């Protein structure tokens, strides 16, 4: 399984952009927001947690259809299915690779970009913690979505329509944690929920994704 993860990482880097593209998109969205809502510091502080989370969500979303695309195109997907490694582990490996190339850089970069939006100082640890718990769940759910739409021609748009509603709880709890933490309120409850969602998706999504892959490979 480690081999699979490393292979995907190498492919991501070689295909150009791997780590960088998601991060660049994240940065661009953050920079665009003040142009859209005005530079007033107080306003930016209020919306910073939400914007950071939405941007992270979109950045994660953009690279989802690549999860299985390369394997589908060169025909190695059926091979992966019949490999000695269970398909559930393959799905998990794909999710992990996606997280390493997207979720992890985003989580690390978010505090750095928070200052651009005048994020309240107290919010930083909550933002970081929330993203650390939430981005793996985003990758896992995204892998399920990518499995559903593998091989479809306009798959990218459909993928977004299917996956974004699934992302809503994570967004709500993550942004709430950052917001409440920033206001100095008690913010452990949403973080606990995020943890729960992360564990739940870790347990269930590989099975759901594998099931869907098997259906698509018939």
């Amino acid at each position: 399984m480690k081999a699979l993860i490393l292979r995907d990482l190498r492919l991501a880097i070689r295909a150009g952009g791997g780590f960088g593209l998601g991060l660049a998109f994240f940065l661009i969205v953050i920079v665009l927001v003040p142009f859209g809502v005005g530079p007033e510091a107080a306003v930016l502080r209020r919306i910073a947690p939400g914007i950071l989370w939405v941007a992270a969500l979109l950045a994660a979303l953009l690279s989802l259809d690549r999860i299985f695309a390369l394997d589908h195109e060169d025909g190695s997907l059926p091979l992966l299915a019949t490999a000695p490694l269970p398909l559930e582990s393959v799905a998990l490996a794909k999710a992990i690779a996606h997280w390493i190339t997207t979720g992890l850089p985003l989580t690390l970069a978010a505090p750095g970009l928070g200052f651009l939006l005048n994020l309240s100082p107290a919010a930083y640890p909550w933002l970081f913690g929330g993203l650390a718990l939430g981005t793996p769940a985003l990758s896992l759910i995204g892998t399920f979505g990518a499995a559903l739409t593998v091989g479809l021609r306009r798959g990218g748009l459909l993928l977004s329509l299917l996956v974004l509603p699934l992302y809503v709880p994570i967004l709500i709890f993550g942004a709430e944690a950052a917001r409440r933490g920033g206001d100095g309120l008690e913010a452990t409850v949403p973080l606990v929920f995020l943890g729960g969602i992360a564990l739940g998706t870790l347990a269930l999504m590989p099975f759901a994704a594998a099931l869907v892959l098997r259906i698509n490979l018939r």
Partner: protein
Amino acid sequence: MSIWEYANPKKFVETTTPLLPWTFGLAGLCLVGGLIWGFFFTPDDYRQGATVKIIYLHVPSALMAINAWLMMLVASLIWLVRRHHVSALAARAAAPVGVTMTLVALVTGAIWGQPMWGTWWAWDPRLTSFLILFLFYLGYMALWEAIADPDTAADLTSVLCIVGSVFALLSRYAVNFWNQGLHQGASLSLDAEKNVADIFYYPLLACIAGFVLLFIALVLMRTRTEIRVRRIRALELRARRAEART
């Protein structure tokens, strides 16, 4: 003589043919009767004025929006386990009905909210949950359209329905957490004191019955259509194969 006999498409169509007009008729009766009763023969609420009359549309449609999805969930499970095509087709048939119900609930909710809350749209937990449900319905219908092979489409949409149900439930709690909201408490709970006053209750029940019957009638009609579509495809396939052989 078990219910599974009706899983046979031909038998399903045969059985429902005489039933359909009666179901529609009864639905129309309950709906028109209930709405007229509620609209013309109930008083205004002392707090909400005449807008309380919107309850006869808002509550039944909201109930059906949820129940339609639940029916799709059950039908999806039956398809995955027992592979009855009628079940998969019924789930597909129910989705547009569910989406319309959700839309009616959202529109009536927003219109009702405007004079009451002073705003055309409020991110109230229940309204927001219905908005999310609307998106789930759209995704489900889009997936059916996107997949070429009908059996694969049935399988994938069934899994989506199941996964979606889990997340829809999760969203409900998340949204409640996110915004404690302006919605009034349960109008139909079993606790008699919290109930909407009796004088509104009975016409409301009639409207709910009407909506339920309308849902059943529409799903029966649409499932019959889907069964026929499947049959047409099979006939076309057979014709093409016959041509290829000659």
